[in-house]
């Protein structure tokens, strides 16, 4: 073993093993194991984030579809509400119109009837006036006291005459 390149050196051998094992222990405790754990944790986090993103994407699509559906439904409903209220307004208007017409017709009829009644009463009154006047005139002209019988007969005659002469 004269060659210096292959000179045995047990001290160095032992120092190497000791140094290496101590370095291994220290690095494993303070660096490798925490790092390996951190790496695994991060891998897990990334996997979960990607899964979440996928889920959120699907959820978003679902929500979008849902909202579109809701909007469409709302629009249709609004349409029906508008058309229904329009129809209702139409019927209300028709109703009011009809009622007004009926009322007007009732009023006219009423007025006509009143007028007729008034007219009839007036005619009756005028007739009575005429009879009284005729009686007074006749008694004055004849200057003769007629019997009660004649009186009544004359009145009846006159009434009949007026009746027949009355314009219908």
């Amino acid at each position, binding site marked *: 073993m004269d060659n*210096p*390149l*292959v*000179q*045995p*050196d*047990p*001290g*160095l*051998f*032992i*120092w*190497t*093993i000791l*140094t*290496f*094992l*101590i*370095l*291994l222990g*220290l*690095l*494993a405790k*303070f*660096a*490798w*194991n*925490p*790092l*390996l754990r*951190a*790496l695994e944790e*991060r891998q897990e986090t990334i996997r979960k984030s990607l899964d979440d993103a996928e889920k959120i994407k699907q959820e978003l699509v679902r929500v979008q579809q849902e909202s579109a559906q809701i909007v469409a439904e709302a629009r249709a409903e609004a349409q029906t509400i508008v058309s229904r209220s329009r129809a209702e307004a139409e019927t209300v208007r028709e109703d009011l119109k009809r009622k007004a017409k009926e009322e007007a017709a009732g009023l006219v009829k009423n007025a006509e009837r009143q007028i007729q009644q008034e007219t009839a009463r007036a005619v009756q009154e005028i007739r009575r006036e005429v009879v009284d006047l005729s009686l007074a005139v006749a008694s004055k002209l004849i200057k003769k006291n007629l019997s009660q019988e004649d009186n009544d007969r004359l009145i009846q005659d006159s009434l009949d005459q007026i009746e027949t002469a009355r314009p219908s």
Partner: protein
Amino acid sequence: MSAQHQEEATPHVGEHAADVEHASEGFDAGATIIEHVTNSSLEHPLVHLEPIAGIDLSVTKHVMMMWLVAGLLFVVITMVTRAYLNQDRRVPSGFMNGLEWLVQSIRDSVVLPNVGAKYVNTWTPLLLTMFVFILAANIVGLIPMFEALGLVDRFVLGNGHDAESLINGVLHGGTTVTANYNVTAALATITFFAIIIAGTMAHGFVKHWKNLVPSGLAKPIYVLLIPIEIMGMFVKPFALTMRLAANMTGGHIAILSILSLVFLFTEMFESAAVGMGVGVAMSLPLAVGISALEIIVVMVQAYVFTLLTSVFIGMAINVHH
């Protein structure tokens, strides 16, 4: 041993050579290169400790370098990890991105396919530590920081080559701990025991040893197979030891050999100009090229060591016979 080599080298009195290298003797490329790739002298360690049970545990340069690498790794990695984990929103940034990439690639493309999902978290820390330790040691070996320190010592502080200065004390010896067979053998020993522990954890102690050979074969085959498998058990870590150390040594020797040409030519022609010419024309571009190649080798070797350890552990866990 470098001193011994220098004594053997033929003394040379060329004036120009003396300017370039050691003051009193000629340039010995072999000795210089060996000094740069091997450990510091075992007879003169940085910190001398009394042998324990006949083993000299003195702190040599490679031990110091290893502590430097381990300390640097621990401080940087732990600091970055703490800073990251203490955030409210854990957004990795800067160096953490790289660290995270490293952790994830070692776990998902080295450990997971070999070891299997059940034991991946058990063995990833070991393989991560192995990878960063070997890689950092390899890279630190590529940086000529002690050579730079030596220049500062020699020319800025004015200490001589043999002066008893602090920097001189740590100058001798190579900086690449993974180029030392003792270091790679220790790492491979950890692999060796990791394989046994993995098999024991997965199948139980007795079953692990039975798994070494396939069951249900004719008896005569076992006579052949059992020794082969037992040999294989030791060959695996031995191959790891050799591969890493040889790769780390080889590149450095190649770079240093090419750079030595500068001094060899200077001596040969007794002219610093020739040496400089050779240096600029050939040594420098080649050395830069090989250094670039070394950067790849450094990463590949760290990866290969880690990958093979992972494969061996996986073989003990998922027995295919």
